[in-house]
């Protein structure tokens, strides 16, 4: 269970998150929606420890993440796939993937995880020795996602996985994510500009505007409320 309570994060005098609160139950998908500059990326960066909040807490399984080092939050089982995907272009596909599980002690399972990722995303297996620089946008997204999965996370923070991808590829990625939650009970916090595709797999939706939660409801309710959708989400 991820509990976000009164989380406020500021960049200098600018408040990027303003007392944000919501819960994410285990094994569910929560979509974080909102326009550019609404604070979506800041929310994820605060939860994964990259930025420190001014106030409030983000608790995962009783651990206050806002007091932990980034490196330890991963070890707790919370993975973060950053915006722009963060694939390291200077490394090969396989090196990128291995990097995701280096901290884990269980060597045989690290190896097993690698095999599973190649099974889940066959294009990566075909390009394992290639520099990540040579990958297409969709393949990079697979790589970023696969690399986070190498850690066998219990919760995943995803920042705009559909960014720059063709609709068909986006749909594939979304269905993979849905499978993951159903099969392994993974919790997902999904930041998206593409509200429609995010709502298609989400259980719950948080809509942010200028750093505040303006709506927190079941994904189906949000998708069904035409006025809200139109006002905040633009479709």
């Amino acid at each position: 269970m991820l509990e976000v309570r009164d989380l406020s994060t500021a960049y200098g005098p600018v408040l990027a998150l303003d007392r944000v609160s919501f819960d994410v139950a285990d094994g569910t998908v929560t979509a974080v929606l909102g326009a550019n500059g609404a604070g979506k990326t800041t929310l994820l960066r605060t939860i994964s420890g990259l930025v420190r909040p001014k106030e409030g807490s983000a608790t995962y399984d009783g651990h206050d993440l806002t007091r932990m080092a980034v490196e330890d939050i991963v070890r707790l089982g919370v993975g973060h796939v950053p915006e722009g995907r963060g694939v390291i272009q200077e490394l090969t596909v396989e090196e990128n993937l291995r990097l995701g599980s280096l901290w884990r002690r269980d060597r045989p399972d690290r190896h097993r995880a690698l095999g599973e990722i190649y099974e889940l995303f066959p294009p990566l297996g075909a390009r394992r020795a290639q520099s990540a620089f040579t990958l297409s946008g969709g393949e990079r997204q697979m790589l970023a996602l696969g690399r986070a999965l190498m850690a066998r996370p219990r919760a995943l923070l995803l920042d705009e996985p559909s960014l720059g991808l063709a609709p068909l590829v986006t749909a594939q990625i979304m269905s993979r994510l849905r499978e993951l939650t159903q099969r392994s009970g993974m919790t997902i916090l999904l930041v998206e500009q593409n509200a429609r595709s995010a709502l298609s797999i989400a259980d719950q939706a948080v809509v942010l505007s200028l750093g505040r939660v303006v709506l927190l409801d079941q994904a189906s309710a949000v998708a069904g409320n035409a006025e809200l959708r139109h006002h905040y989400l633009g479709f």
Partner: protein
Amino acid sequence: MHRFVSFTLDGITHGMIYAAVAMALVLIWRGTRVVNFAQGAMAMVTTYVAVSLIDRHISYWVAFIVALVAGLVLGALVEVTLVRPVENKAPLVAVIVTLGLLVALEASAALIWGGRFRSFPAPFSIVGLKVGRSQIALSPFDIFTICAVLVVMVGLLVLFRWTSTGLRMRAAAFEPEVARLLGVRVGRVLTLGWALAAVAGSLAGLLVAPKLFLYPNNMDAVLVFGFTAAILGGLDSPVGALVGGLVIGLSLSYVGGYLGSDTETIGAFVILIAVLMVRPGGIFTRVNPRRV
């Protein structure tokens, strides 16, 4: 012809020493984006550590190993105590810290060990080998110098390419934030980078001391040559450091040999300025079209 061969051999030996210094600078640059101007002074200090032991009749090889270990510790210490506190400040701050450290180390060395020139032993003969009846400019110690630097270079290359630690180091160098998100303890990796760099630097100090004598700023010129080699190689490339070192070693040997040894330093500056004007990225850096 004989002179040319002599200058070439001499250039290769010196080039390997510059390559070791360049390697140290590259290691630190890759990890922390800082040019460590104190690299030479740190090596000078560890060379003094070695000579202090040798003065007490401890074997050269024990002193050699202790000096390298001292380099390892000194490198880590400098990173943790001096560089880490300014890592989020403007890039120039860390550079100024290393310049300050250079001055502080040289002054402290003069206080502790005195400013006079001291001889430093070589573990092998420094008399050129004989080929047929003529003596060439390659001594057993020169061969040792070349081999020792090659061993360190190959060791670092193996570490980078084929070990998990190397993978962590590369990831931390290229994308520190992403590396942290993947659980890499970037701080520790950077400390290790500084430590390993200081080992390479210390090796250069030990190898150059028999030729140059040991005194508090004996590494100043070597650092300039090593820095030029690193820039020539692109500052980011370990292979570039090796090739840059050899190019600088050979060039300076020819310049010094044919034009007089006083011109060596000027030669290095000419090369440095020429590289910065013509190919500021160095020879070995692909200017990667990085996405932001």
